[in-house]
């Protein structure tokens, strides 16, 4: 069973099989395109159609009502292949087709420059140029991309070429574009290729909507104008889409490359601190210090790669689609990507849950060291990076950046905090609080006990270590060392510069910021820590300020006159 189409050929009605229709239509279209814009084309076409109608009518007299494929073949055989129409006629045109007076092979195949609509990225310019010179269009495209990136003139050149090079519309154009000999065999081949397209278009037309005929009728001037505008915009958006696609491809490729490089090569290093002592570590080294087991680590890495990589892979892929059109496998690729991404979520989630369980219970061990110093004495408190002492002494330079270092089976961490509080007793003491986390308290405590932290007396100084070490197998489980200095009233402590960065929220009478407390003597009083030097400085500043108040009447100007540094402290006191 076959569907038929009703056609009007030179005023006569024919019922014609769908496939036969497609073939006939293509035949007529090809002939039409052969004549190009030449004068008399429409008249010739009318004559040809009339003749075909005549032949078909002769056939119908045999009793069959429907025109079938074999009829069309016979018509074409009688009328001749498209190039025969040019063969004896149209001198100029026939040159173009290489004097195809006969259907035999032609030795002269002149190529013509067309835009290739079958193989286009933006406008088919590169593809057409590629055909013309007989090289793979990828090289032309590459050259254009380079031209766009380096000189920026490529875009303009492309647009101009797009405008001036005609699109290959007919079979003849395509053959000439490819430089294939224009003869019966090749035309037939190209026509066959196009029949499929026509057929498809026709089916789209039929099933796309039955009201198409009505639409044609009401398609007045306005609608034509808008459809013309629409075409322009469509093309414009297509071009923008291509550029956007290129951007997506670049973005996706860069991120994916970074991801792979970052994870699997030593290039992806993370620096802790920024001095000579700080070493860079690859992601794998760091991860193995974080994750409980190798399996869990690789699970997490795979999960993150999928979780982060898939969206960018999808970006890259959609970029490719924008540039080259959607492939048939598009759906499958989409589903695969989505599944892989969900897998990524699963793996990451599993690793995160598993690892966060390791952090669930905190515990800490407090070590209390009595300090022997009496009222009136001054305790000098300083800190050093014990293992890097030599380095620090040599160049007199202290680095206070966060320290992280893996040394053999030990990891050195720089997370040491210091606070100063009022001793509840009359004795001074130092509390060293080692804390860590684990699945349960016992594990947390075991880790806390594994923290190796030392203090050292040197002359009259108490030297704290800025760092502590833990066994590397303990993994990083939020190990911390907090030092609490407990001093009774009327005892004085001098905070040396080595403590910088370690002091954390030390309460004091003048509400001086921790980092300003260094290099001063602090005495514990009943109202908290007081530094005579800072008090003295503040009084000076207040006097200065008062003098300024007297001299300058307008209050607002005062803030501008005083150095901001002083203003802040003045305000602190006045609070």
């Amino acid at each position, binding site marked *: 069973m076959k569907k038929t189409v009703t056609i009007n050929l*030179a*005023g*006569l009605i024919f019922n014609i099989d769908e496939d036969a229709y497609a073939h006939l239509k293509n035949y007529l279209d090809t*002939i039409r395109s052969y*004549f190009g814009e030449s*004068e*008399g084309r429409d*008249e*010739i076409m009318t*004559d*040809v159609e*009339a*003749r075909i*109608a*005549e032949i078909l*009518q002769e056939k119908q007299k045999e009793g069959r009502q429907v025109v079938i494929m074999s009829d069309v073949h016979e018509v074409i*055989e*009688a*009328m*001749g*292949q*498209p190039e*025969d*129409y*040019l*063969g*004896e*006629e*149209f001198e100029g045109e026939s040159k173009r087709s290489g*004097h195809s*007076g*006969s259907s*035999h092979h032609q030795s002269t195949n002149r190529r013509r420059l067309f835009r290739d609509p079958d193989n286009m990225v933006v406008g088919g310019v590169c593809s057409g140029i590629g055909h013309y010179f007989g090289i793979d269009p990828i090289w032309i495209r590459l050259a254009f991309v380079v031209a766009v990136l380096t000189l920026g003139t490529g875009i303009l050149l492309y647009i101009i070429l797009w405008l001036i090079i005609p699109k290959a519309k007919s079979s003849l154009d395509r053959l000439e574009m490819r430089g294939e000999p224009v003869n019966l065999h090749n035309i037939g081949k190209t026509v066959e290729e196009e029949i499929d397209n026509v057929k498809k278009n026709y089916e789209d037309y039929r099933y796309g909507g039955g009201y198409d005929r009505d639409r044609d009728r009401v398609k007045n001037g306005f609608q034509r104008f808008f459809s013309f505008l629409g075409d322009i915009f469509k093309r414009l958006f297509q071009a923008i889409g291509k550029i956007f696609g290129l951007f997506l491809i670049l973005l996706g490729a860069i991120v994916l490359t970074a991801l792979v490089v970052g994870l699997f090569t030593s290039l992806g290093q993370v620096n802790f601190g920024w001095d000579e002592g700080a070493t860079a570590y690859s992601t794998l080294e760091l991860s193995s210090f974080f994750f409980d087991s190798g399996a869990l680590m690789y699970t997490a890495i795979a999960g993150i790669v999928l979780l982060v990589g898939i969206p960018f892979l999808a970006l890259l892929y959609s970029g490719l689609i924008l540039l080259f059109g959607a492939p048939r496998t598009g759906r499958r690729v989409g589903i695969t990507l989505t599944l892989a991404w969900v897998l990524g979520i699963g793996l990451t989630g599993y690793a995160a849950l598993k690892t966060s369980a390791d952090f669930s219970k905190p515990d800490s061990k407090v070590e209390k060291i009595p300090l022997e110093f009496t009222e009136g004495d001054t305790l000098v408190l300083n800190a050093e990076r014990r293992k890097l002492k030599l380095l620090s002494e040599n160049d007199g330079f202290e680095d206070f950046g966060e320290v992280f270092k893996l040394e053999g089976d030990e990891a050195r961490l720089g997370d040491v905090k210091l606070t100063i509080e009022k001793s509840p007793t009359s004795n001074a003491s130092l509390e060293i609080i080692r804390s860590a986390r684990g699945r349960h308290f016992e594990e947390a405590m075991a880790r806390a006990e594994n923290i190796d932290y030392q203090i050292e007396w040197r002359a009259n100084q108490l030297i704290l270590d800025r760092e502590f070490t833990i066994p590397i197998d303990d993994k990083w489980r939020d190990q911390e060392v907090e030092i609490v200095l407990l001093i009774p009233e009327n005892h004085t402590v001098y905070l040396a510069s080595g403590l910088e960065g370690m002091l954390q929220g030390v309460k004091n009478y003048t509400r001086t910021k921790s980092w300003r407390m260094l290099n001063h003597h602090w005495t514990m009083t009943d109202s908290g820590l007081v530094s005579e030097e800072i008090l003295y400085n503040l009084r000076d500043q207040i006097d200065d300020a008062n003098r300024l108040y007297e001299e300058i009447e307008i209050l607002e100007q005062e803030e501008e006159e005083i150095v901001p540094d002083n203003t802040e402290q003045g305000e602190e006191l006045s609070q």
Partner: protein
Amino acid sequence: MKVENTKAQMRKGVLEYCILLLLKEREMYPSEIIGELKELHLIVVEGTLYPLLTRLKNAGILSYRWEESTSGPPRKYYQLTSIGSTVTEELSKTWTALETAVNQAKNLNSNKQDK
């Protein structure tokens, strides 16, 4: 080899002349012309004729009139115009001259071969 090309060129020139000769006798519509030409083995496919007729008509050599057909679409009956008649006369002279020339050339050749 270009022999097919040359043949086509020769046929092309003669074809035009023959159409004019056919139409000199009486007016004809394309299918008739095709039938005659096929008998003369001058054309193989019909498609060739239509562009030729259109060009001759546009050149003022031919004119046509419509005639309703009982068995199909209306037919274009072609006839020679006065210019067409003149052109046909001229072509006839040229043809005679060519024929003579070709014959002479052939004879010349065979004479030489005889010697």
